[in-house]
């Protein structure tokens, strides 16, 4: 993985420095999510305003940032394009000014999501920090200062994106701003630039950044110096521990960063007892900086140490142990069976989360740098390859031949998330405007100009890194080459030095004018929906979210409701009140008006608000039980057909009439048991093709559908989900819908849906170097021709799996390029091409493959492939398939790479040591269990289809925290308490635990919880009083405050509000919790230890 990467030293250093800032970062990081948190605040759900933390939020900064960002986005890009290219000085000036004014948000680039900015300043310092320059010092100091100040706030972090007190930011800005001012100037300025990229992102980032970068890069390399040694070190050294250590420091730092290093040696300790840290927290701040220095020492130490940090993420591991780790030796003695008993449960690999952001440069020297784990917290500096957030490969070295790949039994695939939310400290994506001629492209494969295109012949020609064709350089793009063979302007042109850039699309990329941002809300008002409160919740959510819609005349909205008929509303301002237009023909629908059904937001706001207030009461007495979902979306589609746009549907019951009506298949399946066992998976397939046909039509006209299912019954998600899947939307599932606890989540989900970075009418294509080709795409989109995917909507949460195959041999030592081009329209109506490039080394060494395997990506790939199989294969088969995938990889490793031939040992490659655990978790996951409701499983595998890598892992292997003692930590460090392995051994009867997977959160009450803790956290005193529905509340005690902080941090990390459920031992609700204890043996599968034994035995069988 990290092969090329410089040794840990440099980085660690970076990390270390950052660490100090890190506290801040986290907050920021979450900032995006913050928007969510903010919402919460607005709703007064959690936070009392009285809280000190909350204080900052209200502050202008806090709130604006989250949202503004998105809005800013548009603005920003506009300004930037010109800037970016020439690196115009004037722009520079302008910006600084800007920054102070609209600090965070305004500055944020389009890409950058909301409010993260805060953290940025801090982060930068570290990189420089490593260097000597005075500037860096100042900055670093600044950074250091900040943290301290930030801490209090950061603790709050959860609260809002803004959390950092206003004060902090300014400071950070200040530091950065001076730099910016200097951009043109000397190195120092330059350095500052890079360091500050994140924050200044806005102004500085783009312009100054470009020029400056080079220097930093260069600079960085020197530090790299050490790395080389590292490099060499890698191969030889096996320092699993080291890595783990490193990893821990980097990734897991939050919990135990400082101490960890110390403690790391004792793996068992760390993992098993997350708690040890009580102390760790305190030191963090301080330790951070020291760390750098210390790190090296750590490494050595760690080397010996066992694989304490399971999370043993590749990165760190990479440098040291380059190759294979045989971390935990299981059942060492021969017999697996007996062995199993000997396995020390505390020593088996487990993930260790890291909370400390590390700075990651995508390329070092002239080679790709393996990315940090997807689930870790990192800040990317784009030095040629794209940020792994946008695209990452299952293996960070590309096998030269298909045979080699087959031998490894690993998957070769890309996970592409082109709009992914960047860390707030990262540089914004630069926008390049080539004017009317459009971006330079290869004339054969149409690949876009990128840093890996090689200019030759004095720059008059260039060789495409994708197809190898030699093109003439367009005359006005010509530039002489420097002595190093690069174009002299390479560092000034983002498209030649950045892995990800955005081109302004010229006319030839537009079939029509870029579409306006159209939002159409469609609400179920059938009897059930109204009576369960779903209608009211939807209306209220929409009403609150109106103000978050993009400003401007290009934003249009429409609204309709439906039961057994479809009700449109004419919102035209000329009318005294909205006019309800009913389309009663639900077999053959149509739109009731050509115009006026979709109106400019600015013209209909009052009507819209009035209407949304009225809808729940208007239908209060409705006795219509039927729901014509299919017809309603078709009708709404017809209304939107001319423009396209987002269709947000709130659906509460099984669509029973009209086009695409569905039947209660689940119940039918149950009554016919014999059939249901054999054909169970059929229920997971769409009932018929009607909705699919509709969906394809929607996609063709650029209508993206999101469905919010607020139900208490079976709604046949398997059929319904076809629509969002095909149109680039998604399904939100609230089951069983509760009018008490779900409206807040519904609102936050809707808000995020609308405010997150996104694009419309998109087309995406991935190109690869010769020798490799795209085999297939999977995700939420519509595919009409094999090479492209059509996305009526694309947003930062959507991820697409691109499987690859060899069609030729690759040259060892060469690089294989991947380029993902996404042509889309921004919410502000600009047509853009986002080009994401990744260039990875090719290898003939199997061991290299294992060393550079990317666990998170590989597993996500497994997960998605399993999800694809679920509806078409019997469950048992899917599970076996998954298990075999895991076994085969380990077998291959065992066979070809393991140096030690102690047959009695289960040997795991360091990079993939968690694969068995995740595989086990996957087998026990909701989608692969057969005890779940059909809808739950349908939702699960649909959710997976667009799931991003960072969220895929927690989905199957959730995080668990103890919350009964969240007040025991020492104030200033990471908000999140240590995670607990998912084993009932770690769950005490007197504890309260929070388990979250990015979507749902379970709060589990042991049977003998201290009533005062209950009282403090939840306001009731006995476990018997645990309500069935839950609304987060903050009480005025530190325990409660901390708990709320924890929740908010998680929300921010996940960009999800989380759906809470309370679980009690002995209750059905408790069973839900227990079933998440994937390391336990239960009806759905063996315990973790048993599973390892099973795998071991299988491997041994196959070996012999």
């Amino acid at each position, binding site marked *: 993985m990290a092969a090329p990467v410089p040794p840990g030293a440099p980085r660690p250093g970076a990390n270390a420095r950052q660490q100090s800032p890190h506290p801040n970062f986290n907050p920021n990081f979450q900032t995006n999510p913050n928007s969510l948190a903010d919402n919460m605040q607005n709703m007064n759900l959690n936070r009392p305003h009285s809280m000190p933390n909350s204080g900052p939020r209200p502050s202008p900064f806090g709130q604006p940032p989250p949202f503004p960002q998105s809005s800013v986005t548009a603005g920003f890009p506009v300004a930037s394009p010109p800037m970016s290219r020439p690196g115009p000085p004037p722009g520079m000036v302008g910006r600084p000014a800007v920054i102070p004014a609209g600090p965070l948000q305004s500055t944020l680039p389009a890409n950058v999501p909301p409010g993260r900015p805060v953290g940025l300043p801090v982060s930068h310092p570290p990189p420089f920090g490593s260097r000597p320059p005075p500037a860096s010092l100042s900055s670093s100091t600044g950074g250091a200062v900040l943290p301290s100040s930030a801490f209090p706030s950061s603790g709050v972090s959860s609260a809002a994106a803004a959390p950092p007190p206003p004060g902090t930011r300014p400071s950070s800005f200040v530091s950065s701003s001076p730099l910016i001012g200097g951009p043109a100037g000397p190195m120092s300025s330059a350095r500052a630039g890079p360091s500050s990229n994140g924050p200044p992102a806005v102004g500085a980032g783009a312009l100054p950044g470009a020029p400056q970068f080079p220097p930093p890069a260069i600079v960085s390399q020197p530090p790299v110096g050490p790395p080389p040694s590292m490099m060499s070190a890698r191969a030889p050294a096996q320092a699993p521990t080291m890595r783990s250590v490193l990893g821990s420091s980097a990734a897991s730092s939050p919990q135990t960063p400082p101490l960890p290093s110390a403690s790391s040696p004792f793996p068992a300790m760390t993992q098993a007892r997350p708690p040890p840290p009580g102390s760790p927290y305190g030191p963090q701040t301080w330790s951070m900086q020291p760390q750098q220095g210390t790190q090296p020492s750590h490494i050595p130490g760690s080397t010996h140490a066992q694989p304490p940090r399971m999370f043993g993420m590749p990165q760190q591991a990479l440098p040291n142990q380059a190759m294979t780790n045989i971390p935990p030796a299981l059942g060492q003695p021969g017999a697996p069976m007996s062995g199993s008993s000997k396995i020390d449960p505390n020593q088996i690999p487990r993930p260790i989360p890291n909370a400390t952001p590390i700075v990651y440069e995508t390329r070092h020297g002239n080679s790709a740098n393996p990315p940090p784990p997807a689930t870790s917290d990192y800040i990317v500096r784009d030095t040629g390859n794209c940020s792994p957030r946008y695209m990452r490969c299952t293996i960070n070295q590309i096998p030269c031949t298909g045979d080699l790949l087959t031998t490894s039994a690993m998957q070769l695939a890309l996970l592409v998330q082109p709009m992914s939310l960047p860390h707030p400290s990262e540089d914004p994506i630069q926008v390049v405007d080539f004017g009317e001629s459009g971006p330079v492209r290869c004339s054969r494969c149409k690949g876009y100009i990128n840093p890996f295109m090689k200019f030759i012949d004095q720059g008059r020609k260039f060789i495409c890194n994708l197809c190898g064709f030699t093109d003439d350089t367009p005359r006005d793009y010509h530039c002489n080459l420097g002595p190093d063979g690069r174009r002299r302007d390479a560092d000034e042109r983002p498209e030649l030095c950045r892995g990800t850039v955005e081109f302004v699309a010229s006319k030839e990329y537009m079939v029509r004018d870029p579409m306006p941002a159209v939002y159409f809300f469609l609400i179920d008002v059938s009897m059930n929906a109204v009576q369960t409160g779903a209608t009211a919740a939807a209306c209220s959510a929409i009403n609150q979210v109106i103000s978050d819609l993009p400003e401007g005349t290009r934003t249009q909205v429409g609204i309709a409701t439906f039961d057994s008929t479809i009700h449109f509303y004419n919102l035209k301002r000329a009318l005294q009140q909205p006019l309800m237009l009913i389309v*009663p023909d639900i077999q053959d629908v149509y739109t*009731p008006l050509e115009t006026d059904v979709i109106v400019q937001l600015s013209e209909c706001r009052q009507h819209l608000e009035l209407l949304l207030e009225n809808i729940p009461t208007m239908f209060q007495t409705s006795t219509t039980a039927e729901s014509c979902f299919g017809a309603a979306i078709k009708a709404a589609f017809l209304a939107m057909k001319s423009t396209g746009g987002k269709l947000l549907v709130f659906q509460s019951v099984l669509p029973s009439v009209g086009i695409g009506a569905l039947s209660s298949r689940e119940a039918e399946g149950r009554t016919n048991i014999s059939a249901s066992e054999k054909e169970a998976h059929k229920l997971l397939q769409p009932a018929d093709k009607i909705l699919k046909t509709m969906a394809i039509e929607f996609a063709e006209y650029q209508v993206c559908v999101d469905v919010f299912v607020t139900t208490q019954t079976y709604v046949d998600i398997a059929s319904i989900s076809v629509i969002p899947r095909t149109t680039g939307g998604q399904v939100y599932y609230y089951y069983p819908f509760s009018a008490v606890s779900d409206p807040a989540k519904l609102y936050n989900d809707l808000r995020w849906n609308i405010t997150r970075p996104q694009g419309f009418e998109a087309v995406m294509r991935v190109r690869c170097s010769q020798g490799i080709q795209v085999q297939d795409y999977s995700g939420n989109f519509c595919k009409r021709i094999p090479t492209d995917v059509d996305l009526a909507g694309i947003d930062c949460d959507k991820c697409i799996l691109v499987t690859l195959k060899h069609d030729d041999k690759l040259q060892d030592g060469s690089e294989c390029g991947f380029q993902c081009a996404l042509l889309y329209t921004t919410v502000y109506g600009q047509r853009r091409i986002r080009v994401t490039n990744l260039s990875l080394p090719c290898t003939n060494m199997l061991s290299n493959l294992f060393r550079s395997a990317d666990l998170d990506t590989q597993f996500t790939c497994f997960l998605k492939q399993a999800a694809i199989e679920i509806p078409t294969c019997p469950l048992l088969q899917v599970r076996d398939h998954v298990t075999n995938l895991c076994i085969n990889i380990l077998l291959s490793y065992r066979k070809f790479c393991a140096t030690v031939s102690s047959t009695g040992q289960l040997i795991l490659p360091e990079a993939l040591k968690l694969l068995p655990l995740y595989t086990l978790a996957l087998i026990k996951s909701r989608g692969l269990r057969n005890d779940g409701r059909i809808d739950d499983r349908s939702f699960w595998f649909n959710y997976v289809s667009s799931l991003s890598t960072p969220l895929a892992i927690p989905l199957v292997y959730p995080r668990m925290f103890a919350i009964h003692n969240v007040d025991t930590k020492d104030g200033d460090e990471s908000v999140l308490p240590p995670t607990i392995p998912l084993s009932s051994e770690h769950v005490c009867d007197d504890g309260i635990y929070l388990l979250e997977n990015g979507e749902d959160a379970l709060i589990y009450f042991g049977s003998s919880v201290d009533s005062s803790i209950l009282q403090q956290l939840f306001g009731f005193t006995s476990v018997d009083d645990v309500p069935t529905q839950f609304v987060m509340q903050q009480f005025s005690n530190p325990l409660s405050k901390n708990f709320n902080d924890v929740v908010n941090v998680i929300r921010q990390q996940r960009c999800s509000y989380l759906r809470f459920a309370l679980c009690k031992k002995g209750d059905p609700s408790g069973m839900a919790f227990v079933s998440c204890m994937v390391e336990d043996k239960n009806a759905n599968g063996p315990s973790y230890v048993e599973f390892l034994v099973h795998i071991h035995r299988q491997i041994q069988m196959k070996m012999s």
Partner: protein
Amino acid sequence: MSEMANMDSEGIDAVRMTWNVWPRTKVEASKCVIPLAASIAPIRPHTDIPMLPYAPLRCKTCSAVLNAFARVDFMAKIWICPFCYQRNHFPPHYAMISETNLPGELYPQYTTVQYALQSFPDPNNSNATQLPPVFVFVLDTCMIEEELEFVKSALKQAIGLLPEHALVGFVSFGTQVQVHELGFSDMSKVYVFRGSKEISREQVLEQLGLGSAGRRPTVGYPKVLQNGYANTGVNRFLLPASDCEYTLDTLLDELQTDQWPVQAGHRASRCTGVAFSVSAGLLAACLPGTGARIIALVGGPCTEGPGTIVSKDLSEPVRSHKDLDKDAAPYFKKAVKFYDSIAKQLVSQGHVLDLFASALDQVGVAEMKVAVERTGGLVVLAESFGHSVFKDSFKRVFEDGEHSLGLCFNGMLEINCSKDIKIQGVIGPCTSLEKKGPNVADTVIGEGNTTAWKMCGLNKSTSLTVLFDLSSTERSNVPGAANSQFYLQFLTSYQDPEGKTMLRVTTVTRQWVDSTVSSEELLRGFDQETAAVVMARVTSLKMETEEGFDATRWLDRNLIRLCSKFGDYRKDDPSSFTLNPCFSLFPQFMFNLRRSQFVQVFNNSPDETAYFRMLLNRENITNAAVMIQPSLISYSFNSLPQPALLDVASISADRILLLDSYFSIVVFHGMTIAQWRNMGYQNQPEHQAFAELLQAPQADAQMIIQERFPVPRLVVCDQHGSQARFLLAKLNPSATYNNSSDIAAGSDIIFTDDVSLQVFFEHLQRLAVQS
């Protein structure tokens, strides 16, 4: 009888017949040339008609109603039906009957009586059964703002005039049909139906949510709410006028012209057909027997969906008579078929379609005619919704009092007649109920094959023409003395405007005559005016239904035959030809009929022709005669107003002429008069006589206008003015540019090649005397 008083030519019975004395045999009848026909105005009010508050007695075999012509045996308490000679016992409540104590229907002078019936006898609540009338306004929105404003204000006025308990519904249409749910209080709510798709009544009911829930109540129990309508769910759409007037007003205020885009060079897309389907469907949810009208206000041709009469492309003109003749109107037949289905549905529901069409171009009256006429609907054709022809007519529909139209609902006409009399059919606003019987003729004219007709809507001036035939069996063997009289009985049941159910019974008797013996009697029984009108109606009908029918030749041939049979002449000597006074006006009627819009259709659009014919068929004889042969009154200093010859010679510089051609009324000032007027003499006190002269024709014109529906177009013009054509077109062209030398000074000439009346007569005489 032919010289019945001008004032009341139809008498208490409101029956006029072409022949008041009938020949005995079919052969003889056919020799009479003019068919045996009766024009009846089934519910024309008359002060002498007694109102009987009980149900009539019916003959147990032929179900004719007891009448003044029945022979009564007071002793035996038996009455003998004059139609079938069945002896019927009086029921017990007639026990008091005696020669001196007759029930109303037996008074000899009461040949027409009216029974007030209780359809749902309920002693406690006599009002409860009265279903309020329903008015569904169907408004076209594909028109320019200005027109829409006109029609909106007319609508508002009309709604204000409706009786408070009347139920009102509102449907608007353009590219799509919008049914407004007036009973929804939260906001304006509209059901939208696509214009391009034909929709069945069941679909309408279901989609409006009136399906199963809506219809169930209508079947079983006539549950009635306090305000008098059944709770069928339809009350979401139909509200008492008093409740929804405000809602409707605001609704109309906000109503916009159709918002769907109209392509350049194209007609607006207008789905009149679907709008009718939907409105009819909506009314289907009403209680059966509810009197309801669909009042359609249409501003242009249907171009969308069923009932389309022309494509949207403006380069394609709306069909003309020529296209119809040449079968070059691709939409016509299909549209007619569609509107015919609407008619059937409405008739089965007992509901009316009224059509108010205002547009410069055609709107498809020709196609919709079938639906309007079969349901007895009103029709008004105007050029603009701002024009008085529309405005005043529309207002009249809803007005109470003296000039009210007396709109009634759910009429049914039954005819009983003496043996040997066969009914061929009825021309006029009604639909055959296909009730077969011995008195049904084999040949059908108009709505035939029945002895009962439905008139979903009718008013006090509605007239029908019944065409009779005689049994083909040889009657000579029957002694004539036994029954020298024959009887016709017209039974009309209907709901009056208050919702009460009435039955009117008119029994008339006429004489048989053996025309082979005496044609003198036959002659005297001829009603020229009625005959002319009947000929006009039959001609119109034939022109519409018979392919390649040459109306002029047919009329000429019949006229010649008639003159040959009844004229006095020596063979082959034209100069010897004279006509009995009973016939003397008839040729002139025919002359004018030949020139009228009914026969010379090529001067008009098919819409206008259809409109004219509908009114011709539904007006009484007097009015219909005016349509054929306008009346002309001359006003001058020298004399009182007096009728003038309908001749160009009547034009004089010092006269004012008042022409009433029914559809328009022309006040025509001679040149001198016009000059005086222009100089303002009428404003000078010493010329008050002139002022009065100017005033007189205007006042008379207003009188005519007030009594007429639809309101005629008033044209005031001067000699040699462009508008004078309205007069000149109707005048006998005795002076044309061919003979302009011998005209009187101040008179006028008409630029035409048409033959004049004199020439026509000359030819007629010559042909009539030919052997």
